[in-house]
């Protein structure tokens, strides 16, 4: 193989100390198959962290090359060039340009889409001029060939001066060759793809000297991106800016000239490499499909049908595994209570298991939701949605690209807010971040599900339209309307910093890669269970203690009072027991706190028990169900039923069911609007680098929640 002979010619030059695992960075254009390649190389052996100082997901994984040789693979955000346009892309240069950093990769694998080679090579030539050892992974050769484009790999390799490996990131073809290459010690190419104009040496020279750089092109990038390099000190930036002004350095013109020069060079080198065998006469399949999927009428119709199906599915398909989990947990609890007793058993069953059950039960719905979103992204359909919605979104101060965060917000606001990084424009991005938490996230599903099941009949229209599913979709719609009208408000309030633009590649339609979808579901569900689980178990335990003990001898007094009342009313033994536990709960620490906030929430239709749930929900809203089930389990030793039955059996002072439609809807509306998620506040703080945004969200959303819940309660009662 040519690759190996080439490698042999190179002098062995240790790329990394033997002790430390070598680092390989994956870099490439968006849609070039980078993530699939990453999944192929690392499998389940990956973890998600953060790049130093920023919150962009840093996916790293370990790839086993040989029995005793491993490398660490870093998946970098997709980018079209080393001149970043978005925050996401900026991560790449901050990783590559910091010569003192230990995160610098020893080798980069550049993924390139063979059917779009010219544009994909732009990034490669920039990397090559930085003299970083590189390999070109030529992906989608089959797609290119189907389009009549033949690529001479041998010739390309000679032109580029680095190994070129044809791969198929979907099937895994070429992985073995790639692993062999990674195990060798490679040197940067000797080819030069862009000659820095002589006039610029007055800038490049001093920069190289000051920062101790060896590479001219790297020094040129320091000049272009002085402000974008996080690792530079303020004094260095001032020095750079002075130098640039002194030398009359016109960044825009120079960049444009460089890009043109690079494309000219790429065109030349591709002359002998690419052979177009048949003219591309017939329309591409993707473009024909687009005529339907982005059609004036059908386009929107199909989009809303898909959304509708997703909600129906999340509600009705997921109910089967959910019922199983619910009954399983209830069964486990009664099994434990039948065989053991004591305060610790109560803590375990009424506190921990009841609370944890509240998390586990929602795995089916969350997994389904993430699966749908992953499929929409994978197929390339999400880009079409962005395209169709741009005009409408712009009217509300958003951007077509805001659709992705808004739709992902339906799963979870935290990754959704992070995905807003692809929006280049500051104002568009801030508005998107601000309104995304108003979209109903999966943590609200528990609240909605339980309350809808309680007050909305489970009837079907036309055989398949489920009334509960329709109500659920209505709640999501309300959240979406709240989001876009809040955006409109902000559009007026905020001043623009720069122009907004929408220049975006339209990816070709593809079958989703099920491995990628599967990994996403696994990853997200795991994070949900671990992250939410931690909070919920902790809150459940604290809550159980607060609800089971009261100050001084209040419990004894409560019991005496209950026994007196029971005797006077001539209650049965069972009824007496219930009265005792209910009065005891009222006099517990939790009861006292709930009682003290009751006046504030009474206008919304809530009592002190819901008050406790509201307070604990401010950590995370999914705690609601856990809290409710803990509160209503206290003392109910005889019959530990499912959460729905617990709430249904709750009576008001007249003996009627406590959860009337008015109360239930008011609660749902409250949870829809309220900012009850510490993780979201934390991520907004990190993404906006200020406390102003998260605090504004907290006040705005909670205020809105109170007002809307009040209105809802008044309308329905």
């Amino acid at each position, binding site marked *: 193989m040519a690759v190996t002979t080439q490698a042999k010619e190179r002098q062995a030059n240790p790329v990394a100390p033997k002790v430390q695992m070598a680092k390989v960075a994956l870099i490439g254009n968006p849609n070039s198959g980078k993530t699939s390649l990453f999944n192929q190389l690392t499998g389940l052996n990956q973890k998600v962290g953060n790049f130093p100082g920023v919150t962009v997901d840093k996916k790293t994984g370990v790839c086993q090359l040989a029995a005793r040789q491993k490398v660490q693979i870093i998946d970098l955000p997709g980018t079209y*060039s080393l*001149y970043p346009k978005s925050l996401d892309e900026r991560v790449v240069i901050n990783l590559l340009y910091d010569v003192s950093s230990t995160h610098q990769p020893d080798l980069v694998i550049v993924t390139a889409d063979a059917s779009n080679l010219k544009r994909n090579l*732009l990034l490669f030539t920039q990397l090559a001029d930085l003299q970083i050892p590189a390999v070109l992974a030529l992906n989608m050769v089959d797609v290119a060939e189907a389009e009549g484009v033949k690529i001479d790999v041998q010739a390309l390799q000679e032109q580029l001066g680095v190994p070129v490996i044809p791969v198929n990131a979907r099937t895994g073809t070429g992985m073995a060759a790639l692993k062999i290459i990674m195990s060798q010690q490679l040197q940067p190419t000797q080819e030069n793809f862009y000659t820095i104009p002589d006039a610029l040496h007055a800038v490049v020279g001093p920069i190289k000297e000051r920062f101790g750089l060896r590479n001219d092109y790297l020094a040129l990038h320091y000049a272009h991106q002085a402000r974008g390099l996080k690792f530079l000190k303020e004094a260095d930036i001032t020095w750079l800016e002075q130098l640039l002004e002194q030398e009359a350095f016109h960044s825009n013109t120079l960049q444009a000239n460089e890009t*043109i020069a690079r*494309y000219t060079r790429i065109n030349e080198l591709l002359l002998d490499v690419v052979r177009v065998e048949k003219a591309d006469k017939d329309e591409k399949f993707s473009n024909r499909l*687009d005529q339907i999927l982005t059609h004036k009428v059908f386009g929107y119709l199909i989009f809303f049908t898909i959304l509708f199906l997703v909600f129906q599915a999340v509600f009705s398909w997921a109910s089967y595994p959910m019922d199983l989990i619910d009954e399983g947990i209830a069964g486990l609890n009664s099994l434990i209570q039948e065989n053991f007793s004591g305060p610790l058993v109560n803590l375990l069953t009424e506190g921990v298991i009841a609370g944890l059950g509240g998390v586990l039960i929602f795995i089916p719905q969350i997994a389904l939701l993430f699966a749908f979103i992953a499929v929409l992204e994978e197929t390339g359909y999400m880009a079409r949605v962005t395209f169709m919605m*741009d005009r*409408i979104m712009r009217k509300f101060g958003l951007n*077509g690209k805001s659709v992705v965060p808004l739709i992902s917000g339906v799963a979870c606001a935290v990754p959704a807010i992070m995905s807003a990084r692809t929006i280049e424009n500051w104002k568009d991005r801030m508005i998107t971040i601000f309104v995304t938490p108003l979209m109903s996230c999966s943590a609200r599903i528990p609240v909605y599900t339980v309350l809808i099941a309680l007050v909305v009949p489970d009837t079907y229209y036309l055989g398949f339209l489920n009334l509960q599913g329709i109500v659920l979709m209505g709640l999501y719609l309300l959240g979406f309307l709240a989001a876009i009208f809040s955006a409109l408000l902000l559009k007026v309030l905020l001043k623009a910093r720069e122009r907004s633009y929408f220049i975006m*590649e339209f990816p070709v339609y593809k079958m989703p890669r099920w491995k990628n979808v599967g990994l996403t579901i696994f990853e997200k569900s795991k994070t949900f269970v671990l992250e939410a689980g931690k909070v919920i178990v902790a809150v459940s335990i604290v809550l159980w203690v607060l609800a089971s003990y009261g100050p001084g001898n209040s419990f004894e007094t409560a019991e005496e009072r209950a026994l007196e009342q029971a005797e006077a009313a001539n209650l049965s033994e069972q009824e007496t027991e219930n009265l005792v536990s209910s009065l005891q709960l009222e006099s517990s620490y939790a009861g006292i706190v709930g009682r003290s906030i009751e006046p504030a929430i009474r206008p919304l239709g809530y009592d002190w028990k819901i008050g406790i749930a509201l307070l604990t929900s401010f950590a995370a809203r999914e705690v609601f169900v856990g809290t409710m089930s803990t509160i209503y389990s206290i003392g109910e030793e005889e019959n530990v039923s499912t959460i729905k039955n617990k709430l249904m059996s709750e009576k008001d002072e007249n003996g009627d069911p406590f959860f009337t439609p008015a109360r239930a809807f008011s609660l749902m509306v409250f949870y829809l609007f309220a900012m009850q998620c510490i993780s979201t506040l934390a991520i907004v703080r990190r993404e906006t680098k200020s406390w102003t945004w998260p605090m504004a969200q907290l006040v705005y959303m909670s205020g809105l929640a109170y007002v809307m819940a009040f209105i809802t309660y008044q309308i329905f009662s």
Partner: protein
Amino acid sequence: MAQQSNKKQAQRTVRDLKIGESGEISGLNDPEMALKLLEMGCLPGTSVKLNSKAPLGDPITIIVNDYTLSLRLDEAETILLKD
């Protein structure tokens, strides 16, 4: 002066293309937008075809270098075409 503004009005841009119609790029008249467009392969001399319009007429998709690129009408207007 008058001649120049006349010429500017007469200058065709990607915005003026009809669906299915092609043209050849002669230049980019917005320096800031040009950087992004150049990176995406909209170079002078390249042929460009208007592929489709969004349901509300804006944005549009164009085919350049055998791939599909979407952009807004305002952005399309900065891509000048040869007469």
